[in-house]
Protein backbone atom coordinates (compact mmCIF):
# COMPACT_ATOMS: atom_id res chain seq x y z
CA UNK A 1 0.00 0.00 0.00
CA UNK A 2 1.38 3.38 -0.99
CA UNK A 3 2.60 5.52 1.87
CA UNK A 4 4.27 8.84 2.40
CA UNK A 5 7.27 8.85 4.68
CA UNK A 6 8.76 12.06 6.03
CA UNK A 7 12.33 11.54 7.17
CA UNK A 8 13.71 13.77 9.95
CA UNK A 9 15.78 15.54 7.34
CA UNK A 10 15.21 15.60 3.61
CA UNK A 11 12.20 15.49 1.31
CA UNK A 12 9.10 13.35 1.68
CA UNK A 13 9.40 9.88 0.20
CA UNK A 14 6.55 8.15 -1.65
CA UNK A 15 6.71 4.39 -1.23
CA UNK A 16 4.90 2.30 -3.83
CA UNK A 17 4.56 -1.46 -3.64
CA UNK A 18 5.06 -3.84 -6.53
CA UNK A 19 1.45 -3.85 -7.68
CA UNK A 20 1.21 -0.06 -7.53
CA UNK A 21 4.38 0.47 -9.52
CA UNK A 22 3.02 -1.99 -12.07
CA UNK A 23 -0.28 -0.09 -12.42
CA UNK A 24 1.47 3.29 -12.62
CA UNK A 25 3.93 1.91 -15.15
CA UNK A 26 1.13 0.68 -17.40
CA UNK A 27 -0.73 4.00 -17.13
CA UNK A 28 2.39 6.06 -17.79
CA UNK A 29 3.41 4.00 -20.79
CA UNK A 30 -0.14 4.13 -22.21
CA UNK A 31 -0.21 7.91 -21.76
CA UNK A 32 3.16 8.29 -23.48
CA UNK A 33 1.93 6.10 -26.33
CA UNK A 34 -1.33 8.03 -26.70
CA UNK A 35 0.46 11.40 -26.72
CA UNK A 36 3.12 10.25 -29.17
CA UNK A 37 0.49 8.78 -31.50
CA UNK A 38 -1.36 12.10 -31.33
CA UNK A 39 1.82 14.00 -32.14
CA UNK A 40 2.46 11.78 -35.15
CA UNK A 41 -1.13 12.19 -36.38
CA UNK A 42 -1.02 15.93 -35.67
CA UNK A 43 -2.49 17.38 -32.49
CA UNK A 44 -5.13 19.35 -34.39
CA UNK A 45 -6.42 16.10 -35.87
CA UNK A 46 -6.12 14.11 -32.65
CA UNK A 47 -8.21 16.55 -30.60
CA UNK A 48 -11.09 16.11 -33.04
CA UNK A 49 -10.95 12.33 -32.89
CA UNK A 50 -10.29 11.76 -29.19
CA UNK A 51 -12.13 13.46 -26.29
CA UNK A 52 -9.17 12.72 -23.99
CA UNK A 53 -6.80 14.62 -26.28
CA UNK A 54 -9.34 17.42 -26.54
CA UNK A 55 -9.29 17.73 -22.76
CA UNK A 56 -5.48 17.53 -22.47
CA UNK A 57 -5.04 20.17 -25.17
CA UNK A 58 -8.00 22.51 -24.63
CA UNK A 59 -8.97 25.44 -26.80
CA UNK A 60 -7.21 28.65 -25.83
CA UNK A 61 -10.09 30.73 -27.22
CA UNK A 62 -13.67 29.60 -26.80
CA UNK A 63 -15.41 32.15 -28.98
CA UNK A 64 -12.93 32.53 -31.80
CA UNK A 65 -12.20 29.33 -33.75
CA UNK A 66 -9.54 31.03 -35.87
CA UNK A 67 -7.62 32.32 -32.86
CA UNK A 68 -8.09 28.94 -31.12
CA UNK A 69 -6.55 27.17 -34.10
CA UNK A 70 -3.61 29.55 -34.21
CA UNK A 71 -3.07 29.29 -30.45
CA UNK A 72 -3.05 25.51 -30.74
CA UNK A 73 -0.62 25.61 -33.64
CA UNK A 74 1.85 27.61 -31.57
CA UNK A 75 1.45 25.89 -28.20
CA UNK A 76 0.19 22.31 -28.61
CA UNK A 77 3.49 20.61 -29.47
CA UNK A 78 5.31 22.08 -26.46
CA UNK A 79 2.33 21.31 -24.24
CA UNK A 80 2.22 17.68 -25.33
CA UNK A 81 6.01 17.36 -25.09
CA UNK A 82 5.78 18.49 -21.47
CA UNK A 83 3.10 15.89 -20.75
CA UNK A 84 5.15 13.14 -22.41
CA UNK A 85 8.18 14.19 -20.40
CA UNK A 86 6.28 14.03 -17.08
CA UNK A 87 4.82 10.61 -17.91
CA UNK A 88 8.25 9.36 -18.99
CA UNK A 89 9.80 10.55 -15.71
CA UNK A 90 7.19 8.60 -13.75
CA UNK A 91 7.64 5.58 -16.01
CA UNK A 92 11.41 5.66 -15.41
CA UNK A 93 10.82 5.91 -11.66
CA UNK A 94 8.39 3.01 -11.35
CA UNK A 95 10.39 0.74 -13.60
CA UNK A 96 13.65 1.41 -11.72
CA UNK A 97 13.22 -1.74 -9.68
CA UNK A 98 16.34 -3.57 -10.73
CA UNK A 99 19.75 -2.84 -9.17
CA UNK A 100 21.10 -1.83 -12.57
CA UNK A 101 18.42 0.81 -13.18
CA UNK A 102 19.57 4.05 -11.62
CA UNK A 103 17.13 6.94 -11.58
CA UNK A 104 17.94 10.04 -9.49
CA UNK A 105 15.77 10.22 -6.37
CA UNK A 106 14.43 6.68 -6.79
CA UNK A 107 15.56 3.60 -4.92
CA UNK A 108 14.24 0.04 -5.27
CA UNK A 109 12.35 -0.84 -2.10
CA UNK A 110 14.30 -4.00 -1.35
CA UNK A 111 12.78 -7.44 -0.99
CA UNK A 112 9.22 -6.09 -0.81
CA UNK A 113 9.49 -4.93 -4.42
CA UNK A 114 8.29 -1.55 -5.60
CA UNK A 115 10.14 1.73 -5.32
CA UNK A 116 10.67 4.69 -3.00
CA UNK A 117 10.48 8.04 -4.80
CA UNK A 118 11.98 11.10 -3.22
CA UNK A 119 9.62 14.05 -3.84
CA UNK A 120 12.42 16.59 -4.03
CA UNK A 121 12.27 19.86 -5.97
CA UNK A 122 10.32 19.63 -9.21
CA UNK A 123 9.69 15.91 -8.79
CA UNK A 124 6.49 16.49 -6.82
CA UNK A 125 5.15 18.79 -9.57
CA UNK A 126 6.10 16.29 -12.26
CA UNK A 127 4.09 13.64 -10.44
CA UNK A 128 1.16 16.02 -9.92
CA UNK A 129 1.06 16.85 -13.62
CA UNK A 130 1.25 13.20 -14.61
CA UNK A 131 -1.44 12.16 -12.12
CA UNK A 132 -3.69 14.98 -13.30
CA UNK A 133 -3.24 14.19 -17.00
CA UNK A 134 -3.94 10.51 -16.33
CA UNK A 135 -7.08 11.31 -14.32
CA UNK A 136 -8.28 13.65 -17.09
CA UNK A 137 -7.74 10.87 -19.62
CA UNK A 138 -9.55 8.22 -17.58
CA UNK A 139 -12.40 10.66 -16.91
CA UNK A 140 -12.75 11.30 -20.64
CA UNK A 141 -12.76 7.54 -21.31
CA UNK A 142 -15.38 6.89 -18.62
CA UNK A 143 -17.47 9.92 -19.57
CA UNK A 144 -17.22 11.64 -16.19
CA UNK A 145 -18.74 15.03 -16.93
CA UNK A 146 -20.56 16.17 -13.84
CA UNK A 147 -19.09 16.64 -10.38
CA UNK A 148 -22.46 17.13 -8.70
CA UNK A 149 -23.49 13.48 -8.95
CA UNK A 150 -21.60 10.29 -8.15
CA UNK A 151 -20.39 8.57 -11.28
CA UNK A 152 -22.34 5.50 -12.45
CA UNK A 153 -20.85 3.49 -15.28
CA UNK A 154 -23.20 3.15 -18.22
CA UNK A 155 -24.44 -0.49 -18.11
CA UNK A 156 -25.19 -0.39 -21.83
CA UNK A 157 -21.59 0.45 -22.64
CA UNK A 158 -20.35 -2.67 -24.38
CA UNK A 159 -16.74 -1.57 -24.61
CA UNK A 160 -15.22 -4.54 -22.83
CA UNK A 161 -11.59 -3.50 -23.29
CA UNK A 162 -11.57 -1.85 -19.88
CA UNK A 163 -13.54 -2.79 -16.81
CA UNK A 164 -15.28 0.47 -15.76
CA UNK A 165 -15.34 -0.51 -12.09
CA UNK A 166 -11.61 -1.23 -12.13
CA UNK A 167 -10.92 2.02 -14.00
CA UNK A 168 -13.03 3.87 -11.43
CA UNK A 169 -11.04 2.32 -8.56
CA UNK A 170 -7.76 3.30 -10.22
CA UNK A 171 -9.13 6.79 -10.86
CA UNK A 172 -9.97 7.17 -7.17
CA UNK A 173 -6.56 5.89 -6.10
CA UNK A 174 -4.78 8.33 -8.44
CA UNK A 175 -6.87 11.10 -6.88
CA UNK A 176 -5.71 9.99 -3.44
CA UNK A 177 -2.06 10.04 -4.54
CA UNK A 178 -2.48 13.48 -6.08
CA UNK A 179 -4.26 14.85 -3.01
CA UNK A 180 -1.49 13.48 -0.80
CA UNK A 181 1.27 15.10 -2.86
CA UNK A 182 -0.62 18.42 -2.80
CA UNK A 183 -0.72 18.10 0.99
CA UNK A 184 3.04 17.48 1.04
CA UNK A 185 3.64 20.69 -0.94
CA UNK A 186 1.17 22.58 1.26
CA UNK A 187 3.24 21.72 4.32
CA UNK A 188 6.50 22.74 2.68
Amino acid at each position, binding site marked *: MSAFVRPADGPVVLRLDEQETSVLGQLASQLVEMLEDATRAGIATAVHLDPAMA*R*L*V*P*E*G*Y*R*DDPEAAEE*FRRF*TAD*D*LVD*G*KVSAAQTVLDAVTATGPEAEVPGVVPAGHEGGVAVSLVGDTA*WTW*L*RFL*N*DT*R*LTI*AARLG*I*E*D*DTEPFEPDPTDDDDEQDPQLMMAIYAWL*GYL*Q*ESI*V*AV*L*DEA
Partner: protein
Amino acid sequence: MAQILDQPIVDEVTLTAQPWVTIVWNDPVNLMSYVSLVFRSYFGYTHEEAERLMLAVHHEGRAVVATGNREAMERHVQAMHGYGLWASLAREDA
Protein backbone atom coordinates in the same frame (compact mmCIF):
# COMPACT_ATOMS: atom_id res chain seq x y z
CA MET B 1 -1.63 75.80 -36.40
CA ALA B 2 -3.67 72.89 -35.10
CA GLN B 3 -4.90 73.05 -31.58
CA ILE B 4 -2.63 70.28 -30.47
CA LEU B 5 -2.72 71.26 -26.83
CA ASP B 6 -6.49 71.39 -26.54
CA GLN B 7 -7.74 67.96 -27.41
CA PRO B 8 -6.13 64.79 -26.19
CA ILE B 9 -5.72 62.61 -29.26
CA VAL B 10 -5.44 59.35 -27.36
CA ASP B 11 -8.51 58.17 -25.54
CA GLU B 12 -7.66 57.73 -21.88
CA VAL B 13 -9.51 54.43 -21.81
CA THR B 14 -7.16 52.83 -24.33
CA LEU B 15 -4.17 53.78 -22.18
CA THR B 16 -5.45 52.30 -18.95
CA ALA B 17 -7.61 49.41 -20.14
CA GLN B 18 -6.28 45.89 -19.83
CA PRO B 19 -8.67 44.26 -22.25
CA TRP B 20 -7.80 40.55 -21.94
CA VAL B 21 -8.49 38.05 -19.19
CA THR B 22 -7.46 34.50 -18.32
CA ILE B 23 -10.47 32.37 -17.39
CA VAL B 24 -10.31 29.03 -15.57
CA TRP B 25 -13.37 26.79 -16.06
CA ASN B 26 -14.82 24.23 -13.70
CA ASP B 27 -14.40 20.56 -14.51
CA PRO B 28 -15.30 17.44 -12.53
CA VAL B 29 -11.76 16.05 -12.45
CA ASN B 30 -9.38 18.64 -11.07
CA LEU B 31 -9.04 18.46 -7.29
CA MET B 32 -9.95 21.66 -5.45
CA SER B 33 -6.74 21.48 -3.41
CA TYR B 34 -4.68 21.09 -6.59
CA VAL B 35 -6.34 24.04 -8.34
CA SER B 36 -5.73 26.21 -5.29
CA LEU B 37 -2.08 25.11 -5.12
CA VAL B 38 -1.58 25.92 -8.83
CA PHE B 39 -3.04 29.41 -8.31
CA ARG B 40 -0.62 30.03 -5.43
CA SER B 41 2.40 28.47 -7.06
CA TYR B 42 2.02 29.93 -10.55
CA PHE B 43 0.37 33.32 -9.96
CA GLY B 44 1.79 33.88 -6.49
CA TYR B 45 -1.64 34.42 -4.94
CA THR B 46 -2.02 34.28 -1.18
CA HIS B 47 -3.69 31.24 0.30
CA GLU B 48 -6.91 33.22 0.86
CA GLU B 49 -7.03 34.64 -2.67
CA ALA B 50 -6.26 31.27 -4.25
CA GLU B 51 -9.04 29.63 -2.22
CA ARG B 52 -11.49 32.39 -3.19
CA LEU B 53 -10.71 31.96 -6.90
CA MET B 54 -10.82 28.18 -6.70
CA LEU B 55 -14.24 28.30 -5.01
CA ALA B 56 -15.46 30.77 -7.65
CA VAL B 57 -14.43 28.29 -10.34
CA HIS B 58 -16.16 25.49 -8.49
CA HIS B 59 -19.43 27.25 -7.65
CA GLU B 60 -19.83 29.70 -10.52
CA GLY B 61 -18.35 27.50 -13.22
CA ARG B 62 -15.56 29.94 -14.09
CA ALA B 63 -13.35 32.62 -12.65
CA VAL B 64 -11.10 35.32 -14.04
CA VAL B 65 -7.68 34.58 -12.57
CA ALA B 66 -5.60 37.21 -14.40
CA THR B 67 -6.03 40.41 -16.39
CA GLY B 68 -3.53 41.98 -18.76
CA ASN B 69 -2.39 42.20 -22.35
CA ARG B 70 -3.14 39.47 -24.83
CA GLU B 71 0.39 38.03 -24.97
CA ALA B 72 0.61 37.72 -21.20
CA MET B 73 -2.81 36.03 -21.06
CA GLU B 74 -1.75 33.57 -23.78
CA ARG B 75 1.28 32.65 -21.67
CA HIS B 76 -0.96 32.14 -18.62
CA VAL B 77 -3.42 29.96 -20.55
CA GLN B 78 -0.56 27.88 -21.93
CA ALA B 79 0.79 27.42 -18.40
CA MET B 80 -2.65 26.46 -17.05
CA HIS B 81 -2.97 23.84 -19.81
CA GLY B 82 0.41 22.52 -18.69
CA TYR B 83 -1.04 22.00 -15.22
CA GLY B 84 -4.09 20.33 -16.76
CA LEU B 85 -6.47 23.14 -15.85
CA TRP B 86 -9.24 24.10 -18.25
CA ALA B 87 -8.38 27.66 -19.21
CA SER B 88 -9.00 30.10 -22.03
CA LEU B 89 -8.51 33.78 -22.72
CA ALA B 90 -10.99 36.37 -23.93
CA ARG B 91 -11.50 40.09 -24.13
CA GLU B 92 -12.44 41.43 -20.75
CA ASP B 93 -15.85 42.63 -21.93
CA ALA B 94 -16.62 39.36 -23.74
